[in-house]
């Protein structure tokens, strides 16, 4: 998370790696740092972002699970 903050806090779409951007984690932290009222739009948004992040890591984990199973060499 701390590393993600080094990437900046500017939400924009760019393919230039030298420009600052904002990661999903940094966005959640940024919203949480302020006193977000319960049930406000920002409060609901961080859960949506969190869910998308979870789905992405879940997919990656499934792929890695599949790779380890596929290439595991069983001895004996």
């Amino acid at each position, binding site marked *: *998370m701390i590393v993600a903050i080094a990437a900046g806090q500017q939400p924009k779409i760019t393919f230039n790696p030298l420009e600052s951007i904002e990661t999903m984690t940094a966005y*959640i932290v940024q919203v*949480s740092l302020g006193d977000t009222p319960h049930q406000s739009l920002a409060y609901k948004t961080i859960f949506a972002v969190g869910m998308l992040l979870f789905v992405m*890591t*879940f997919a990656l*984990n*499934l792929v890695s*699970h599949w790779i380890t199973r596929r290439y595991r060499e069983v001895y004996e």
Partner: protein
Amino acid sequence: MTTDVRTFVDQTNSDQGFDISARQQLKRRHTTGRIFEILAISAILVGMIFLIVLLVDVVINAIPWLRSELFTEFPSRFPERAGLRSALFGTAWLLFLTALFSFPVGIGAAIYLEEYARKNWFTQLIEINIANLAGVPSIIYGLLGLGLFVRQLGLGRSLMAGALTMALLVMPVVIVAGREAIRAVPSSIREAAYGLGATRWQVVWAHVLPMSLGGILTGTILALSRAIGETAPLITIGALTFIAFDPRGPFDIFTVLPIQIFNWISLPQQDFHDLAAAGIVVLLVILLAMNSLAIYLRGRFQQRW
């Protein structure tokens, strides 16, 4: 390997041309080997050098601020009066409560999976789930804590909510470490106990658990040392607060070391950045102490069969 090639070269000594090309080929292979070795060494050096530079830089900034006030004073607007007291108390409380929640549940799950569960699709599903939970970004646990503990259960931004969130975060690591330790107990010991008429409960409680305790404790301590370095989930549940008192109980609001460091770094004054460096040194010392304890316990309880 080398002798093989040499005899091969000796045998073909009559054929002058072949001899030379074989020697050249051998030389080229040795050179390739050396180049690869150098590449591998420089790969290690890059990591080591960056780590050392980072540590030296932090320690140099920290030295003037490593004084007794750092441990006895509360956070303050004035860097010369600011200290880590509330953060140290918060970290200690959080560590204690997290261990309290994650240890029994994690070990229980590990025992169930290793000693009781049958191998079927359900345990397979649980295993995939645990592996997946271990790889989920910590901020997602923070969101879970915010929704479940802070709002639904009404715990507020208390130590309790933070500790429960942290317990969930380290649970997969504790379960995996516990399972490894339990699996290391040879099945001959279980079978001997069963052979003497012990029940499953007696086998687990009197033999498997004591024998795997070293590994379980080591894994739990390593998991906890991950927990005290985590910032993101605690910021999400709202622990980034200016705390100028000692937490009196598990339902008080709190701050912890990494959050206090983060707080100081986000301030503009250079003095606070150096204070943050001092905080980092304190956090590193605590982490190293915990990891040394884990290594000590591993050596202490290590058994050979």
